[in-house]
């Protein structure tokens, strides 16, 4: 394989990894605060794709982006309010089942409303612009994705480590009742968590679908599962872990495709999940559980 091809594949892998990372953050943040695997997260990502299709059909893309961003956040927060909040004091399994229910609901709603035929994802002009460096050529989105991912991760980490809201999020993730005793409105903090997760899922969807070009009702299923694996790989609950997990999966998959084993690229992801759960269930950066009695 020539150096250029290698570079080209490397770029594709990093770019795919970036989109995965942004979605994986949503899984890891919700898990961190609610101890819930939000199975509907991949479908929020899919819905963001559809929202974008319809928005761009009726307005210029620079208006569509903020509108769809808002709609995706609204969807994420509403799902939490309607399907998870009433189960706050129920056993964890109930809320998990509710999440699976929401996931199917969104998939079937999308099939019903938009049919199961794939629809073309709109082209956002500046993202599709291609560029050439020597023999290397790619669209701008491929180049932007990793940088945008790292920038957003950095912003998110500063939010969590240096703001009052971030401090409250860390407190709530540790201890609900004591957080309430401090005067923290935990429902607001949880809503904020879903809002941030959905916002990142929206950014991920723009980057991912611009590359894939079509959206269909099950578009969110496989990427959703893979990003969940990315979050587990990095150590669920850890944001840098999710980002690194996303990049590892994106690069690994692309490498397999490049080597001619594209049939195994999905298997690779889930093999990683099994190996991880067997040998290091807390993931690469997972918090160690230390119970002090």
């Amino acid at each position, binding site marked *: 394989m020539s150096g250029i091809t290698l570079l080209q594949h490397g770029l594709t892998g990093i770019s795919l990894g970036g989109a995965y990372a942004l979605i994986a953050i949503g899984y890891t943040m919700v898990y961190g605060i609610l101890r819930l695997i939000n199975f509907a997260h991949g479908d929020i990502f899919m819905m963001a794709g559809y929202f974008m299709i319809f928005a761009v059909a009726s307005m210029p893309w620079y208006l569509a982006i903020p509108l769809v961003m808002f709609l995706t956040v609204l969807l994420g927060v509403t799902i939490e309010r309607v399907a998870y909040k009433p189960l706050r004091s129920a056993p964890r399994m109930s809320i998990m089942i509710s999440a699976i229910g929401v996931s199917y609901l969104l998939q079937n709603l999308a099939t019903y409303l938009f049919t199961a035929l794939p629809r073309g994802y709109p082209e956002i002009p500046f993202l599709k612009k291609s560029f050439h460096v020597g023999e290397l050529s790619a669209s701008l989105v491929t180049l932007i994705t990793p940088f945008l991912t790292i920038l957003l991760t950095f912003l998110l980490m500063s939010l969590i480590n240096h703001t009052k809201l971030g401090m409250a999020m860390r407190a709530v993730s540790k201890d609900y009742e004591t957080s309430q005793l401090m*005067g923290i409105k935990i429902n607001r903090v949880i809503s904020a968590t879903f809002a941030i997760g959905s916002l990142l899922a929206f950014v991920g969807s723009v980057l991912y679908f611009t590359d894939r070009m079509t959206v269909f009702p099950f578009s969110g299923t496989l990427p959703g599962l893979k990003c969940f694996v990315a979050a587990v790989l990095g150590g669920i609950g850890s944001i840098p872990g999710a980002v690194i997990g996303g990049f590892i999966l994106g690069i690994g998959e692309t490498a397999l495709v490049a080597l001619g084993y594209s049939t195994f690229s999905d298997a690779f992801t889930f093999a990683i999940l099994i190996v991880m759960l067997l040998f290091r269930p807390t993931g690469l950066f997972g918090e160690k559980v230390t119970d002090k009695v």
Partner: protein
Amino acid sequence: MNNDRCLTLTDLQVDYGGIHAVKGISIEVPRGKIVTLIGSNGAGKSTTLRTIAGVVKASAGSIEFEGTQLIGKNPDDIVSMGITLVPEGRRVFANLTVLENLKIGAYIHSHKLDDDLERIYGLFPRLKERDWQLAGTLSGGEQQMLAVGRALMSRPKLLMMDEPSLGLAPLIVKDIFDIIRTINKEGITVLLIEQNANHALKIADWAYVMETGTITMQGSGEELLAKDSIKEAYLGKKKQ
């Protein structure tokens, strides 16, 4: 008369975890005093405090704080009104630094915290030395001091404490009770739950004895300390 009442519970009943944990108790906490609630495990003391703080819902009765009904209010409203609970077992946020734990105690406030922090560090110099450490790395006594400091950051009018001496070495227990006195002298009303009845009764202006969800006895700290039945049940002294 109404003026020097800080907190009044009237016929409070609480069902908690399928148990009728509090069966109609009436308690009065006068402003500026230390009132203690003693009793054995499972008497319903913690449930009472958690109900006042709003994290457990009452099933009947009334809780009045400075003339306002607290039943039905959310925990964050209650903190904003000036009632803060130091929970049983300290419950500091182990994943936050000491400084962050103190800051989160003042979550309801948006003013500058420098003066409040100075005041807490004055009371607990150890916390200042360790303000960058994760709270989970502190010793039990330091965590209790942090829990008290964190509660004071909300500038409470009424400070409720749930078993502050639990699991601490005797010397540290003495420190904690000294601190409670100091806090009280600064004008903060204290409602204290203790199994360590001896210490609690010594500092209390008024005390209630709680058994299986009801108040069985009340009196000034000194009176109760002198009672034979109390000595036998809570102070481990046999009748002669």
